[in-house]
Every structure is written in structure tokens, then in C-alpha cells.
């Protein structure tokens, strides 16, 4: 569904992505791992056409999106639902209006139907009680969950994109979000999870990419990841085995 063909991207003189190529299938569950500032968010923005590559092609469902206009890109963006790193809720609207945003924009539902739909979405993510609050009155975890609810309202996405959906949350909340993410893609819809928390990534994804210095250092499934000898990945794996042990000794 998504093809990156020799994509280069830079901010000014700072090269973020150097000659990146990969292919993502219709219903794959992928985690893009990497340290902070390695360009994980940049990849998601490229997929949505929010920024354009310096060189190379990005092909979505057989269509090259690199030279599309903003109007043409609208259709491409409809295929995805994204939860941004900070949630990116509209901070002048309350939770209800945030979730209802797309419904109001694209459907001619009555006020009652919108209210019903919003409550249903909020129930799915488990923050129904926060419906009247403003975004800055929410905790980090609630914020993230409302953002997920809002992304669900955005018509019928073929693929979910999550940018650091669990970062900055306590393990309990992170686990709830992970389960939610898995639940949502149960019916075979693909997802790309961008994170530097490998511990959460292995719960969700079945294919892993590791980004380092602008190139993809590793691309493979869980088995390959665990047995990888790349030093940078080893550091990450140590973290997982540590938390694994901690869990065991705790239980």
C-alpha cells in the first residue's frame, strides 16, 4: 500500500532521511523504532503528504503523491487516520467538539446523532466522562485517548498511523492504549506505530524497522529482531529483557 522509493529528506542542511526505501502491505502491523530525532515523525508526515521529499518517490496505492496538490492529497489522506505525537487536539474546542470535528465537516448528521456518535467513540477509548472538558484539563493518557477517538471519527481509514502513542504514559495506561490499538486493527486494518519504546512495540507490531542516522538499519519480524546483532538494537533489547525480568520477579 505504501512504497518509499529512494526517499531523501532534509530540513535545511540537516539530512534527516537518506535514501530510504521500503514497502508496506495493506494490513501489516509495523513499528518504526529509533531514537529521538531520527526522523520517525518525518516519515509519517511524508506518508500523508504534509511535507515533500527532496528526492525519491512515495507511492500510495499505486499513485505517486510527491507532486500532488493539496486538493488532490485530500483523497490520499482520507485513507489514513493519524494520532499525532502530542495528540494535537484543537485546544480551543472541548473534547466533544474535537471528536465531532470530522463528523461536522463531512457528514450531515443531526445534533443528536453527532452526540450519540461522539459518546460511542469516547466509550470505545474509555473516556466518556471527559466529554465536556477542555483539552488542557485532561491528563496525558486521556489526551492520547481522545486523540485516538477523534482519529476514529475520520471516515473509514484503511490504515492507522500512531506517533508515540504510548510515550510519556505510565505502564498501566500505556498497556491500555496498546490493547486499544490492537483492538482497533483487529479486522485486518494495518497500522504503523512510531515509537522509541520497544517494549510497547513488540506487543503490537509484527514487523519492525529500526531507523538510525537517516537509514533503515534493520527491517524484519520479531524473531529476527530478538536475535539481531546490531549494537544499537541490542541496547533496546536489553531494556525489554530487563522489563521482562522485572515483570516476572514482580509476579
Amino acid at each position, binding site marked *: 500500500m505504501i512504497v518509499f522509493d529512494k526517499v531523501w529528506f532534509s530540513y535545511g542542511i540537516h539530512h534527516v532521511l537518506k535514501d530510504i526505501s521500503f514497502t508496506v502491505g495493506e494490513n501489516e502491523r509495523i513499528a518504526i523504532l529509533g531514537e529521538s530525532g531520527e526522523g520517525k515523525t518525518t516519515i509519517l508526515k511524508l506518508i500523508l503528504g504534509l511535507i515533500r521529499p527532496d528526492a525519491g518517490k512515495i507511492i500510495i496505492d499505486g499513485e505517486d503523491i510527491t507532486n500532488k496538490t493539496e486538493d488532490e492529497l485530500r483523497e490520499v489522506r482520507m485513507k489514513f487516520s493519524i494520532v499525532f505525537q*502530542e495528540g*494535537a487536539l484543537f485546544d480551543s474546542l472541548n473534547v466533544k467538539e474535537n471528536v465531532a470535528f470530522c463528523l461536522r465537516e463531512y457528514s450531515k448528521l443531526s445534533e443528536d446523532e453527532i452526540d450519540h456518535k461522539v459518546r460511542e467513540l469516547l466509550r470505545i477509548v474509555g473516556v466518556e466522562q471527559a466529554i465536556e472538558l477542555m483539552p488542557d484539563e485532561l491528563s496525558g493518557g486521556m489526551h492520547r485517548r481522545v486523540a485516538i477517538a477523534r482519529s476514529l471519527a475520520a471516515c473509514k481509514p484503511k490504515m492507522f498511523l500512531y506517533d508515540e502513542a504510548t510515550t510519556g504514559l505510565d505502564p498501566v495506561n500505556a498497556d491500555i492504549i496498546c490493547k486499544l490499538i490492537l483492538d482497533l486493527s483487529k479486522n485486518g486494518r494495518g497500522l504503523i506505530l512510531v515509537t522509541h519504546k520497544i517494549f510497547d512495540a513488540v506487543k503490537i507490531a509484527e514487523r519492525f524497522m529500526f531507523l538510525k542516522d537517516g537509514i533503515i538499519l534493520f527491517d524484519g519480524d520479531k524473531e529476527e529482531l530478538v536475535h539481531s546483532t546490531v549494537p544499537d538494537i541490542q541496547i533496546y533489547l536489553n531494556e525489554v529483557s530487563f522489563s521482562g525480568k522485572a515483570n516476572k520477579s514482580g509476579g
Partner: protein
Amino acid sequence: MKIKELISELQDFYLLSARGLLVAVKKPFYLKDMIEQMDYAGAGSFVIIFLVSIFTGMALSLQLSAELSSLGLKMYTGKVVGISIIREIGPVTAALVYAGRVGSGIASELGSMILGHQIDSLRVFGVDPLKKLVTPRILSSIIMLPVLTIIGDVVSLCGGYYIAVFVSHQSGTFYWSSIRDVLTFENVFAGSVKPFIFGYLIACISCYMGLSTKGGSKGLRKSTTRAVVVSIVMIIVSDFILTRILLYVLGFSV
């Protein structure tokens, strides 16, 4: 390098200004956003415009009646106050106040939306930020600044009246009749063209600065300041140019 950047920035600015106005005729219309903007920009600025205008009018009238009475020309106070307020001071003060209050508000709001990825969210949802955010602000400024200017003019003239009659002891009826003499087509036209252009300028500059914010809260500070400073300079400069053009068009000789 610097010049190239400047040119590309100017180009972006022109594109935003032109498109911001042009897309106003295309669907969908964000009427609710526009009304909210008009309320914020117009009704919200009323008190400050009132205060600034009344004191400007009083100071001007006081100064002029002192100066003119030493020349024995006290009866011209109304005429001079009227012309300067309607043609120059009214539009410029209102625009400066508007830039300080509304321009900075626009820049900081859009800037923090950029920083919080809210603009990206809009784009992902298929909403054109230009249409949803910029157009309502431009239109509401084009509508509200002239309204505020007219209110400001009236208040200033009343302030001038108060000083002329109660401090400088002139005849009130004569003051108003000389004001009425000043309300010719030329003067009113010259005075009312300006706020439309100032409103458009302030809105475009502030939106552009807000949308080009980068670099966290420091960047936000920079773009807000730049929005106000550039607006103020542009108001004064364009006021001069407009005055020149209008005098020429309306056939005054300098």
C-alpha cells in the same frame, strides 16, 4: 542567500494574501468561524477604541485651540480637528490599536496551533487551513476595522467637542456646523478607504507571521512581535502612500 530568502518569503506572503481573499467565494463557507472572529475583533475592541479615540480627540482639540487662539483663529478649531481626525488620525489610530490587539492575537493563536500540530491535523482531516483560519480573519478584519474606525471618528469628534466647548469656550453649534462642512465626499471617501486596506494588511501580515512560526515558545514570541511591528510600520507607510494617491485622485493640489 539572505535576499533569496526574503524574496521567497515575500512570495509566500503575496500568495497567502491573494488566496486568502480569493477562496472566500468557494465552498465550504466557515460562517461560524467568521462570526466568532468578528465578535473577537470588533466587539472585543470596542472599549479600547473608545478610550483611545476620546483622548486623542480631546488632546488634539486642546492643542489646536491653544495654538489657534494665539493666532486669533479659534473658530477654525472644529474644521482642523474634523479634517485631521476623519482623514488621518482616526483611521491610523484605529488601525494601530487593532494591530496591537487583534494582530498579535491572530499571530499567537495561529502560531501555537502550528507548534501543537493542530494545523497539520486540519490538513489531515482534509480541511484547508487557509480557508478555515485565514479567510475568516481577513474578511472579519476588512469588515470590522472600518466599523471601528467610524465609531472611533465619532468618539474623537465628541471628545474634541467637549474641549472646544467646555474648556476653550467656543460655540457648540458652530463646532458641529464646521464639522458638517468638513464631511464632504472627498474627505469621507479618503477616510473610509484607508481602514479597508489597513484591515486587509493587518490580517494578512498577522496570519502569515503566525503560520510561519517555528522554534517553540521563543519562536512564538518572535512571530507575535514581528506581526505587530511589521503591521505598525506597514500601516504608517501605506497611510502616507494612500494619502498621496488619494490627494492626487481627488484632485487636491499640495
